[in-house]
């Protein structure tokens, strides 16, 4: 699942207490979108630290 960090919330995530790996967490903190497993994404979504990135449909992607 693709997720993006809420930059004004994510600093409260305890890196030692979430499933997300360090590399992905660093990217989220930098404002990047990362693709993580459903379980990892769901934990951060439940905590309110990230938001789901809507995947473009094939049609939307084609139209640019």
């Amino acid at each position, binding site marked *: 699942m693709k997720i993006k960090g*809420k930059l*004004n*919330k994510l*600093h*409260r*995530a*305890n890196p*030692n*207490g*979430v499933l997300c790996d360090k590399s992905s967490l660093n990217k989220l903190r930098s404002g990047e979108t990362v693709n993580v497993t459903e379980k990892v994404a769901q934990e951060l979504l*439940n*905590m*309110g*630290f990230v938001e789901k990135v809507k995947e473009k449909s094939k049609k939307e992607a084609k139209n640019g």
Partner: protein
Amino acid sequence: MADTRVLPVSNVKYGLKAETSFGAGLDTDGNDGTAYFTQPVVQAQKPTFNINRESRLLSGRGSVKNAADTITNLRGGTVTMPFEMLATPRTLAQHLLLVGQETGHSSGVHETEFDGSSNADSIGGSITSGMPHSCNLAYYPAAGEGIKLCGVVASDLTIAGDVGANNGLVSMSGNYFSGFSNPVSSSTVLEQTFDGTWAAAETTYFNMMDADTRTLDIDDASDQTFIMKSFSFNIANGVNRVGFDTNGNAELYVFPEYAITGSLMIKYDDEFDYGAANNIIQDFLNGSTMGLSIKIGDGTISAEGELNIVANIQYTGDPAQDLSENGVFHSLEFECVQNGSSEALKISTFKNEAPNAF
């Protein structure tokens, strides 16, 4: 030969799980398989059974009490247990329910307010969606040696933050209370094994140095921003047990008064001084009611670790001073009071679980 077993303090844990029926065990068949939520304490304190014991020196026994002339009565007693921990999203939300018996839960936002009308005066009837809120408490030193307490609420709760303590993380402490002091299979139990899968303690905290909003009314001004050294709120509900069921355990609890006091230490500066318009002493002398806001986070309450505290306060004593290397600070003692339609105290926090999932 004496036994060499040692019980390390850190081996003892305790957990909570919301009840579905007041004072009843969630799993009463043999080992308790309930998935308790481990509480993030450093040292779990033992529950204390406050039962009645009659001990008399009867006439004709001479000058020493006789073993046959004492009576213990498990019925009508209470069980209490202190707690102290760093506040985490679930523990804070749940302990506010346990002491406040009021919730406005929606989409993960837990809002407990103290307003003189919405907090329960008594509990003991049916439980719907986790309200009113009481818990099973599992105190667990080792297999076969656990204590399960039922009908557990909090009699008092202190929420505090100090930039010089706990690395600025908000802590909470208080006491649990149960009116189920008579061990029976369907409720409070001794010698219990807890073999459910306990949920690990949470690892998200509330950092008071993350408080974006810190405002207090003063004298002729409203919502002045203060620089904070520490804060503390104490909520005591005066819980008492009432009645006796077939086992002598409580039929209900009453909450006669929700008394809320607190303290705040803020810097002496142009916003809070002894001059015209911003005179903090004048507020005490006038008996003024002031609005106080402390919001950890951006105030929206949409992620774990965010906390809004909104209160109406009156100073209970002359604003004292704290003299430190950083200059003069005001040391303010207050009580929270209902002011028209504004709550004495309202605390909002985020945990994406409903109260009945706690």
